[in-house]
């Protein structure tokens, strides 16, 4: 593809999502955008670019951004954060929220909902300890398409076999041919909303746990800092943030610190050090 077209399309994506596409990502742009070119009966990416240049059509630019930012995910991705949630974070919350009996969890950049529903499954497995509690799981993503898919909770046979133990599949899903839908009870535990991490977060409220994994890696340092600091504004003083395996807060913000005993967990800098020691 032509350099000027790449720069134009990458510019649209960056402005709308914050995703930075280096010039080495031309192949990615081609493979993700060619389906749109075919769908709209255009000749090639040059024609798509010409259209963007001429019209700056909202719908077209939104579709381009969605195509470039939709990332495949799977249930219990990376496993370890979910183990930590179950073994460390949940017992902590059961203690510090014992009076309030209310937990709020945010799955940011939730994509098609696997992270949110993995958490819902863990919470269901621990239902005995949570009797009388209210738990909200909120998933947000900038793509209309994936938010709608997340709400439906319908997955194909490949998706339900990556990361998901078969015992949980038969316990929490209903089968319809080769599609599997997460059951109604779990769907009621999770809400999904359209929200751009770079835009207005609206009435998001305060959370006890935030999952923001494998999102920051795509952003420039200043954008990462901005998002991390806004997350800290929405995180309870004794709450916890999960980042992806290749992500950290070092040199980006001093609002969070690492929990020494539990690698991968980040807590507000003012959080007393002994709060997590016993956990």
């Amino acid at each position, binding site marked *: 593809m032509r350099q000027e077209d790449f720069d134009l399309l990458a510019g649209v994506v960056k402005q709308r999502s914050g995703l930075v596409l280096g010039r080495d990502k031309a192949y990615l742009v081609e493979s993700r955008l060619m389906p749109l070119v075919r769908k709209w009966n255009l000749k090639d990416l040059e024609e798509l670019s010409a259209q963007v240049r001429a019209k700056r059509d909202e719908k077209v630019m939104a579709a381009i951004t969605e195509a470039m930012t939709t990332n495949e995910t799977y249930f219990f991705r990376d496993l370890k954060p979910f183990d930590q949630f179950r073994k460390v974070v949940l017992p902590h919350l059961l203690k510090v929220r014992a009076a309030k009996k209310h937990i709020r969890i945010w799955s940011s950049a939730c994509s098609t909902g696997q992270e949110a529903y993995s958490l819902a499954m863990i919470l269901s497995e621990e239902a005995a300890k949570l009797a009388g509690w209210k738990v909200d799981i909120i998933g947000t993503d900038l793509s209309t398409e994936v938010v709608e898919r997340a709400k439906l909770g319908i997955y194909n046979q490949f998706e339900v*076999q990556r990361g998901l*133990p*078969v015992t949980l599949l038969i316990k929490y899903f209903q089968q319809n041919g080769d599609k599997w839908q997460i059951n109604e009870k779990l769907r009621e535990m999770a809400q999904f909303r359209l929200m751009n991490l770079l835009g207005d977060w609206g009435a998001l409220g305060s959370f006890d746990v935030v999952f923001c994994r494998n999102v920051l890696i795509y952003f420039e340092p200043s954008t990462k800092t901005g998002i991390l600091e806004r997350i800290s504004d929405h995180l309870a003083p004794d709450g916890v943030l999960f980042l992806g395996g290749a992500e950290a807060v070092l040199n980006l913000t001093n609002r969070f610190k690492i929990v020494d005993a539990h690698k991968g967990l980040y807590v507000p800098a003012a959080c007393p050090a002994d709060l997590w020691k016993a956990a």
Partner: protein
Amino acid sequence: MPASKTCLLVEDSRVIRKVAATIMEGLGYTCREAENGELAMQECKKAMPDFVLLDWNMQVMNGIDFLKQLRGLPNGKTPKVIFCTTQNEIAHIQEGLAAGADEYIMKPFDSDIIRSKLEMLGLIEESG
């Protein structure tokens, strides 16, 4: 270097055995193959594998009968067994688990699914 882990591929399609063998060898396993449950029993009696990938529908002896016999052997509870079959109804999955399967793969599968299921059973390290 420690001896590599062993796996037994029980599957009547030669093509699928080859596909599975390529994936498993890529994950560091040494593979043996059997085209039905009876031949698989003979292989297990010769030497118990660490892992069995098991088809359901096969001539001579099917997968579920093989699994029940295997679990009855003195050291037959040692191998991890994953069904790998086109039988994808919940009733079949439950029957397979009740007979002693550790996991269940619905065909068609790909290398990601096999790797993911092996990780769940602790048979390979997480790829991260």
